[in-house]
């Protein structure tokens, strides 16, 4: 592409000038035709120097009052989690609602919910990287951080669900003095341990590798020698050497290529916890794709919620533009329709299979005593995202925010519907029952959000919240350069 004297990107100052459609340069294409180029990913005429300031600022200045307020609320909710878990471990599982016949309650619901949230982070960082979606650079750092914190929240629940949480280390297969008593590798619950821990650690590695060059940027901006030394150690002495970039880029690509099947495998294995059982409503082959797509759907909703905050609270509108939000809205609508399709397929198969039990479970799901949970799920997940057929809705941050919250609610209820409605009425009508949450179920759920937001708020205070080096790479050098021209430019013109 021929470089223009004045880049068309230099004049795009903010969201107001973005349309979500290509910029048409009349007569600039081959043979005098029009040239269409995508709109800039970074607005406001930002230079590379400005990127460092805009993004590192939040980790360099004293926290604002708004941050303290948000942090105070999050910390209070985290306190609720710590208190309730202590009470749970001291008092035993009797204080929460699980009982016969519903032996899997909110802990498993919350576990699947939080693990699902995490999946969007990996999708953005790995899958969109492999597909060369450059808009991911504005949001991938925060989305990957979200993955880690969501996995941290998810990890709590299977452990407290054990009842005797202090024996959690029995889940790890290691030579021991208990027989030796090994885990049963034929059990999907044992697969889960490997899947979740691999997912957590590989996500952490991927995130940290992405952070290395940015930690060096923070180091080079630091004025205090300690701060400089700490960030230098954290970046492993990164200098930006292209001989290091060569291996770095190769490793980054490989991590993306490994994380992509990993993210699909993790929720597949989570779905095996259900699908390999003989419960009607669980024992179906659609579960792996259904769970994976639901996870991506709920995760994107959470990303939209967080990005709305980052735009509003931290003023990141030049890096997370309306075009980014619109792209996420499109993915939300697509995955929402796939989830809705899965709901319909389940119903069709319940009828088409001719299985009496399967048919009953699905009639009971939609029209039984838990019809309200099914209605919330179906409305929030399959119907509400349909507003994104209209471009004006995709580009309205209020609509996006409200829809993202509704989808989060809907996806929590999806897991509620799957877990509770299948268990509460199975083969034997004499052992049917109902499931009621106790106050501790609610407190632990609320508390897990406290842990999530506490970790996220700490993250925005100490680390660059946008991938600086990746954003710099997708900016137009003609806008981003700090010097208009040098001798080298003239030499390049002659050559």
């Amino acid at each position, binding site marked *: 592409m021929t470089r223009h004297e004045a880049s068309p990107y230099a004049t795009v100052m903010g969201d107001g000038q973005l349309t979500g459609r290509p910029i048409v340069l009349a007569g600039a294409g081959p043979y005098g035709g029009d040239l269409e180029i995508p709109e800039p990913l970074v607005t406001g005429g930002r230079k590379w120097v400005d990127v460092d300031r805009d993004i590192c600022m939040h980790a360099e200045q004293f926290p604002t009052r708004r941050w303290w307020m948000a942090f105070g609320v999050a910390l209070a909710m985290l306190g609720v989690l710590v208190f309730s878990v202590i009470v749970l471990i001291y008092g035993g599982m009797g204080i929460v609602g699980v009982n016969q016949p519903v032996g899997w309650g909110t802990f498993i619901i919350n576990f699947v919910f939080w693990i699902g949230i995490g999946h969007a982070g990996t999708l953005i960082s790995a899958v969109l990287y492999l597909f060369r979606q450059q808009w991911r650079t504005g949001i991938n750092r925060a989305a990957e951080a979200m993955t880690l914190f969501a996995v941290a929240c998810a990890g709590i629940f299977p452990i407290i669900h054990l009842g005797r949480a202090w024996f959690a280390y029995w889940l790890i297969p290691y030579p021991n003095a208990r*027989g030796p008593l*090994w885990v049963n590798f034929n059990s999907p619950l044992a697969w889960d341990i490997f899947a979740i821990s691999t997912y957590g650690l590989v996500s952490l590695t991927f995130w940290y590798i992405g952070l290395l060059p940015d930690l060096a940027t923070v180091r080079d901006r630091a004025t205090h020698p300690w701060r400089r030394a700490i960030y230098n150690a954290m970046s492993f002495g990164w200098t930006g050497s*292209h001989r290091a970039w060569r*291996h770095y880029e190769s490793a980054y690509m490989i991590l993306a290529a490994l994380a992509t099947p990993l993210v699909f495998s993790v929720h597949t294995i989570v779905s095996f916890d259900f699908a390999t059982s003989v419960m009607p409503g669980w024992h179906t082959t659609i579960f792996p794709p259904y769970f994976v797509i639901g996870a991506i759907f709920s995760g994107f909703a959470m990303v939209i919620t967080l990005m709305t905050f980052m735009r509003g609270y931290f003023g990141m509108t030049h890096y997370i533009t309306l075009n980014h939000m619109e792209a996420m809205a499109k993915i939300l609508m697509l995955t929402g329709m796939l989830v809705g399709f899965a709901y319909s397929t389940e119903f069709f198969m319940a009828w088409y299979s001719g299985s009496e039990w399967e048919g009953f479970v699905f009639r009971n799901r939609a029209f039984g005593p838990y019809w309200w949970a099914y209605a919330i799920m179906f409305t929030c997940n399959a119907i509400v995202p349909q507003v994104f057929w209209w471009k004006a809705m995709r580009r309205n941050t209020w609509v996006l925010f409200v829809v993202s919250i509704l989808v989060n609610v809907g996806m929590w209820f999806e897991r509620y519907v799957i877990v509770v409605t299948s268990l509460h009425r199975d083969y034997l009508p004499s052992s049917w029952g109902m499931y009621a949450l106790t106050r501790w179920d609610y407190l632990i759920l609320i508390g897990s959000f406290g842990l999530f937001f506490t970790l996220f708020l700490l993250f925005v205070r100490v680390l660059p919240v946008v991938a600086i080096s990746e954003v710099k790479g997708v900016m137009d050098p003609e806008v981003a350069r700090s010097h208009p021209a040098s001798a080298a430019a003239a030499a390049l013109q002659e050559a």
Partner: protein
Amino acid sequence: MMPVSTKGILGHFYVPAEALAAAAKVRDAGWTHFDFLTPFPIHGMEDAMGQKTSWIPWVTAVLALCGVLFAQGLQNYVMVWDWPMNFGGKPFAAWPAFVPITFEAMVFWAALGSAIVAIIAGKIDTVPQPPPMLVATGATVDRFVLWISATDPKWDAAEAERFLRSLGADGVRLVDARGGSDA
């Protein structure tokens, strides 16, 4: 660990295209101990600097195989040899049940190992670098810095300086960390 040269020359460029053109000229002029310090990776720089493709994928392949062998070894050892249990008359070596953990272990070994090896490789598989904490280059901000180490067989301070200026580099300066920098 990382080879560091206390002497050399630095000069910088302002856009990737200039850096790319300069790198090709440095390569063609026969310099070998040179490097580009850049705020983000530049597409095509490997060729321009005359580097081969990274060997990290081979490390990944070996580690992935190790992960597969580890997981298969562990599961077969436990389920077939050390603690065989009869689940409804099913075979002890129920290989389909071992697939998920084998896959997870493969990813785990390959991903973590590749990341660690890549970080170390960036330090070892390189040419002598400028003394990192002594030289503020701006390469993590917005400059594309060319570094030629004095360890280069072709090294001649005056010749190197003349060459960098002929490339059109800005801020050309000789670094001598022992004898003091003239910057």
